[in-house]
Structure formats: structure tokens, C-alpha cells
């Protein structure tokens, strides 16, 4: 197992290199520079600024400079947030995104699995259909519609929850964003669980167990749940990606200073170093998470390891 994990980690290095080079070329290919403005600077000042940030060097020199810094763990200074370094910005933004994402993920898994199993056990009854109809609707409405509607309803009209992020302390400010972020995933996981649970319940070993007189609860808990979770587990990778995407929107709408919001801002502002920093950070994260999911998968389903 350890060898497998190490091999996978080694295999990730070319991926990361590819990510770095691609992202570097793309940000630099984008027209306009980080310091352009309608208030165009005079040639002398522009030259002074370019020199201060080494933007006057040829591109390959800039890449070497960046890469050399990277190898020492230095992601460079941000061009847009001139008082901060990229590492600092990621350091403050990531914990927020992480909290948000983890909570949304937990919420999605807990409610999704529960709702899916519930529906599977009452297959083709009214409760099943209503749960599934809800799930379908959840998948079918974009986050950027759900989020402002929730804010308007719960924060502005009813004033039950805070509308924004900064200045509101405590758990309440996480509630709306987490719900908005989790809702589509709840729906998706519920559908997955239901489908695989129905398959499992129809399988031989469950029928055997039933024949032995085990109750439904016991069957689900001891026999069906684990195999039924496998598709959910393999969905974790895409789910993480979906939550990353969703968090860009949710962070934007709720004004949450997470990584997604910083990335969009940085891309628009040509904050070269910040864009690169976030891309590299995220790529590393996704690689590690996928590794974890694979290992988990192997732990639950020994067949994978034998392959």
C-alpha cells in the first residue's frame, strides 16, 4: 500500500510540471499586464515598474526566476495585493475555502446517502418519488440562482441569518453558503446511493440474508450500506471538483474571501503570481485528494488492490 502511494506521488510530478508550464504560458499570453489601467502611465514610470517586477526580462528568464523561487517554496509577491505575498494570501484564503468545502461535502454525503437509502427502501412509493423529484430539481438549478434566492429569503426578508461574511462572527455565516454549495451535491449523491442501493438490495447475498430472517435495518446496516457506498466514494473526486467550481460562485455571491474568489480576481487583474500560486496549490491538492480517495477505495474494495 505504501509503495503504491509513493509511486502515485512520484507520478504526480510530471503532472504538476505540466500544470505550472501551462498556467505560466497562459497568464502571460493573456493581453494586458498587471499594472495596466485607463490611467495610462508615462513611458518612464512604466519602465520603472516593469524593472521593479522583472517584467522587462524575456519570458524564459521570468520563468526560471519563478521556478527557482518555487523550488524554495516561494510563490512570490502578489502584483495586485502589493502589501501581501502569494503564500500569505493562500494562507488566509485556503482555510476558509477548506472549511466551506468540507462542511458542504459532509452535509452532501450525510444527507445524500440518507435520502438515497431511504428512497431505495421505499422504491416506487410516494416518499421515494418526492425525494427523487427534489433531488432532480436540486441538480437542475444552478448555484448562482439558489444562492441569491436564499439570501433574499432568509437574510433580507426574514432576517434569520446574516447576509454576509465579514463582520459576522460564528457559525451562522457559514450556513447559507454551505447549503447553497451542498444542495446540488446532496441531490447527486442521493441519486447515486438510491441506484446502487437498489442494485445491492436485489443481489443474492442480501436475498440470502433476508431469507435468514434479518430485518431491513440490519440488512442495510450490516450488508447493503458498504457495497452501496462504492459508487458514492468513486464520485468523491468529481464532487470535490464540483465543489471547487461551485465555491467560486458562492464565494463571489456571499463575499467570502476564499481561494475561488481570489482566483477569479487574480485572473482578471493579471496578477500573474497569484494565479500561478493558486493553480499550483489546487493541482497539488486535487492530486493528493484523488490519492486518498483511491486508497480509501482500495480499503473498502480489496479487488482494486489486486489489479
Amino acid at each position, binding site marked *: 500500500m505504501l509503495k503504491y502511494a509513493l509511486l502515485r506521488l512520484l*507520478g*504526480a510530478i*510530471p*503532472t504538476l510540471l*505540466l*500544470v505550472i508550464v*501551462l*498556467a505560466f504560458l*497562459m*497568464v502571460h*499570453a*493573456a*493581453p494586458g499586464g498587471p499594472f495596466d489601467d485607463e490611467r495610462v502611465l508615462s513611458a518612464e514610470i512604466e519602465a520603472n515598474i516593469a524593472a521593479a517586477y522583472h517584467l522587462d526580462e524575456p519570458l524564459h528568464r521570468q520563468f526560471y526566476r519563478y521556478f527557482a523561487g518555487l523550488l524554495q517554496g516561494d510563490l512570490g509577491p502578489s502584483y495586485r495585493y502589493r502589501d501581501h505575498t502569494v503564500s500569505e494570501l493562500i494562507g488566509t484564503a485556503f482555510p476558509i475555502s477548506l472549511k466551506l468545502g468540507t462542511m458542504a461535502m459532509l452535509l452532501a454525503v450525510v444527507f445524500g446517502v440518507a435520502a438515497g437509502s431511504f428512497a431505495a427502501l421505499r422504491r416506487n412509493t410516494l416518499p421515494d418519488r418526492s425525494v427523487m423529484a427534489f433531488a*432532480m*430539481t436540486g*441538480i*437542475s*438549478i*444552478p448555484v*448562482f*440562482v439558489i444562492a*441569491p*434566492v436564499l439570501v*433574499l429569503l432568509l437574510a433580507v426578508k426574514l432576517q434569520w441569518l446574516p447576509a454576509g461574511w465579514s463582520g459576522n462572527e460564528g457559525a451562522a455565516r457559514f450556513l447559507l453558503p454551505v447549503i447553497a454549495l451542498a444542495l446540488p451535491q446532496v441531490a447527486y449523491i442521493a441519486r447515486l446511493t438510491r441506484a446502487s442501493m437498489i442494485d445491492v438490495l436485489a443481489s443474492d447475498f442480501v436475498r440470502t440474508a433476508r431469507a435468514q430472517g434479518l430485518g431491513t435495518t440490519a440488512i442495510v446496516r450490516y450488508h447493503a450500506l458498504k457495497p452501496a457506498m462504492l459508487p458514492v466514494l468513486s464520485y468523491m*473526486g468529481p464532487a470535490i*471538483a464540483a465543489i*471547487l*467550481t461551485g465555491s*467560486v*460562485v458562492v464565494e463571489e455571491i456571499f463575499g467570502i474571501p476564499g481561494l475561488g474568489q481570489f*482566483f*477569479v480576481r487574480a*485572473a*482578471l487583474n493579471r496578477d500573474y503570481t497569484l*494565479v500561478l500560486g*493558486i*493553480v499550483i496549490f*489546487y*493541482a497539488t491538492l*486535487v*492530486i493528493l485528494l*484523488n490519492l486518498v480517495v483511491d486508497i480509501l477505495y482500495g480499503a473498502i474494495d480489496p479487488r482494486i488492490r489486486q489489479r
Partner: protein
Amino acid sequence: MTTLFNIWRRMRENRAVMVSGGILIGIVIVAIVGPLISPHDYLQTNFDNLLQRPGTAGFHLFGTDDLGRDLFVRSMLGVQITIVVAVVASVVSLVIGVMYGAVAGYVGGRVDAIMMRFVDTLYALPFIFFVILLMVAFERNFLLIFVAIGAINWLDMARIVRGQTLSLREREFVDAARLTGVSTAAIIMRHIAPNLLGVVIVYVTLTIPQAILVESFLSFLGLGIQEPQTSLGALVDAGVNQMEGASWMLLIPAGLLATILLCFNFFGDAMRDVFDSRSER
């Protein structure tokens, strides 16, 4: 021929397929015919008639938007474009995915290992970030949206097709073809690809709603289609800002978007049943 006929028969027997398919076809027909019948066109502004409520007045069935443009015609245009974008993007991902997966699965061995390793590599790229970068860096155009969405979706397709091909490869008719000296390319084109039909159809119907969501996400970021053209995502995005004063600007396109997504999801699910029942027997 008989296979296709069989599929069609099973589809007819499946109520979910017929209902969701019927609604989709209905929406598409209205979206094509509606603008032709309507006295309005999609870009005519009317500054004296901003934000008119839906109704029969002036034949603005869905009301007007914040520039006085007819929302019915615009919604229908949005439906057209959204579906075209989603379908074409899905087909793009399908073509790339099927070819890639079929080759990897059929050739197998080291080639397969390398090709799949590459797919794994791409999986780790934070794609949405690259899409944003792409859209930021280059002039907006249709093609780019297809490429962006297609690029996200072909990986899954490649994996699924590879799996199917691996099992198909061992079947008798493939062996027979190989023994009679048919080239690898011809086998893939003639024998493997057609037999992937079931998986592919199901998968495409499930990819389309994802593509629609990606398009609407790009519209939310202002990186979508160029006005005065529009898509459902762009209309919804505009509607969100008018949510309180002119709720119809949100509700109508959002309703259409949700209905279309729902139908595609139901249709895809039900098609899976159709093909499953075929393979069982």
C-alpha cells in the same frame, strides 16, 4: 437494423423516456417556431416599454426585459443556443472520448497504460481555472465555449468507453474479424464503435445537462456568449439582478433551464434502463 428497432420499441414502452423526450421535443419546436411567429425580434429595444409584465399587451407573452426587448423571443433564442452549445460540446467530447477510449481499450497493453495515465494526469488539472483563463485571455467566441466544455467532459467518456472496449475485444465477432485480416482501424470503426452505441447514448444525454450548467456558469462570470445573442444561462444571470423588481426575468428563463435540465436527466436515466434491459436479455 433490428437492434435500432428494438431500442425504439423499448423506448416507447418506457414512460419516462416518452414524457421527458416529448417535453424536450416540444420545447425545441416552440423555440424554433415561436420566434418566427412572434411580431418581435430578439434585439429590438423599446425604451418606452421597459420591464413590462408578462401578458398579452403588445404580444409580449413573457413580458420585456430592462431594455424593452421581448422576453419570449429572447428566451426562445436562449433555448436554441443553450441546446446547440450543449449538444455540440457533448458531441465534441463524445468524438474525442470515444476515439481515445476505443483505441486505448482495443490496443491495450503499454499503449493503454500510457494513454490512461495521461487521462489521470489531466484529471488533476484544475480545469475550471483553465477555462476561466482561456476565456479571459482570448476574444470570446462560440468555438471557445465548445472547446472549454468539451475539454472538461471527454475524460469521463474516454474512461467509460475504454472499459466497454476491453470487454468487447474478447468477443467472437471481433476475433473473427481479426482472423480474416481486417485492419485495427477498421475493426475499431466497424465493429467496436457501433457496439458502444448504448453506453454512448446514455452518457451523452447525461453529459448535455452538465454542459448546460458549465455554459451558465461561464455566463455568470460574464464570460459567456456575446450580446445581443443570448443563452439561458445569460438570461438567468441577468434575471438574478432583477429578481425583486421584475421576477419574471428570473423565473421564466430559470424555469426553462430547470425544465430542460430535468428532462435531459430523466431521459438519460430512463435510457439507461432501456439499454440495461436489453443487455440483460
